């Protein structure tokens, strides 16, 4: 078994999943945070069904953005502190692929709870059932992009507060927000939403290599 990219991939996967499994707060907190944020809207505004139904796409997406952003905050900090992150850059394999593997793992751990939370929220916000599947699709694409962006933000502000990381990342996540809510709103109105999903997919296609490369640069800054 030589050191090649597949071994690295599975190593990162195994290690991170094992650690996340043993620290259940990693995957429970995004879920609960999402639900708390969603609950604030009827509490602060009005519990009226029609009103909440009109708000539902936006509220779910806002909660998804905030949850995935805060969840990805600590993606590198532990590995950087205990020295495990150094191995990514000492090896022969392209570091940005390893960073991608790490973000993918992290998204599997935190993104799936967010999807679950969005499913629950769609019930408590009276989202029409027809838009459920498109919403989930848009959230899969969107939360993954958020994890990529958030990872870059976390790498840039490694060791600093979460709120700083938020102002760095949130402006860049506005297109995702607009496209994602467009998918859900179009689905509610029985309009074609595939175009928006394609745009989100395209953003991912460019974002995966681009953001991972920039994240590698950002992490390497911390070694100087």
């Amino acid at each position, binding site marked *: 078994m030589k050191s090649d990219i597949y071994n690295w991939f599975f190593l990162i996967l195994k290690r991170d999943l094992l650690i996340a499994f043993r620290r259940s707060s990693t995957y429970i907190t995004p879920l609960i945070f999402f639900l708390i944020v969603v609950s604030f809207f009827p509490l602060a505004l009005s519990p009226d069904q029609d009103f909440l139904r009109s708000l539902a796409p936006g509220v779910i997406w806002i909660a998804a953005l905030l949850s995935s952003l805060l969840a990805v905050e600590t993606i590198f900090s532990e590995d950087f502190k205990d020295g495990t992150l150094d191995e990514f850059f000492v090896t022969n394999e392209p570091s940005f692929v390893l960073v991608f593997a790490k973000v993918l793992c992290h998204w599997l751990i935190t993104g799936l709870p967010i999807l679950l939370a969005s499913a629950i929220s769609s019930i408590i916000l009276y989202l029409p059932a027809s838009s459920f599947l498109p919403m989930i699709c848009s959230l899969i694409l969107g939360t993954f992009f958020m994890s990529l962006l958030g990872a*870059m933000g976390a790498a*840039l*502000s490694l060791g*600093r507060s979460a709120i*700083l990381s938020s*102002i*760095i*990342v*949130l*402006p*860049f996540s*506005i*297109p995702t927000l*607009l*496209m994602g809510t*467009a998918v859900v709103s179009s689905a509610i109105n029985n309009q074609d939403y595939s175009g928006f999903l394609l*745009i989100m997919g395209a*953003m991912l296609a*460019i974002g995966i290599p*681009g*953001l991972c490369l*920039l994240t590698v*640069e*950002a992490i390497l*800054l*911390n070694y*100087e």
Partner: protein
Amino acid sequence: MGSPPLFFQWSSKALPWLAIISIIVFSIGMVWGIFYSPTDYKQGDVYRIIYIHVPSAILGQSILMFMAICGFITVVWRVKISGMLIKSAASIGASFTLIALITGSIWGKPTWGTWWVWDARLTSTLILFFIYTAIIGLHSSLDDKTKADRAISILSLVGIAIIPIIKKSVDWWYTLHQPSTFTLSSAPSMAPDMYQPLLVCVLGFYLIFAFLLTMNLRAEIVFREKNKTWVSKQYLNRQKNDK
């Protein structure tokens, strides 16, 4: 020129000229536009604010592009001065964007009755402002300023890549929710004698930017190199170890 002290010496000589030229062109543009251009038949005299609003908006976007180019140079070739340029330009760019927002708002009040409206262009400008604050916030939070320069290089590269996507998506979002009333942000169809002062204003704003950028960069250089002898000689007129 890539060396900060050298740039400082060169700019000390160039600065007075730059100041004079920029102030002259800026003043010509402003006075011409605000006082001597014809009155618009639809909006009256209030439209004159475009002589501040439009150049500010143009500068706000161009400065981000400038920062992205400097960012690319910093990341790829590790030139020190291009990193400092990003930092120096960021606050200027943020200020121009803020001016564009405020003047846009002032323009809206007499025409619409409200101080703010979420139309496509104002909203995009607001998001641009947030990108500037992200860059400035990141730089101020990192204590090692060389590292901070490289960090904002990365961020400005992401910024310039996402700007077209933001504009397109905000445009689309606005058309979806567009109220039936006419959108104010499109400039009135311009007669040549309205257009010419606008061009001069834009040029004046660019020159002012160059002037402010040079001033900012000089201040940044002195701040970073404050422990070096050339700085003490320059400003304190004494050797480093004198008391």
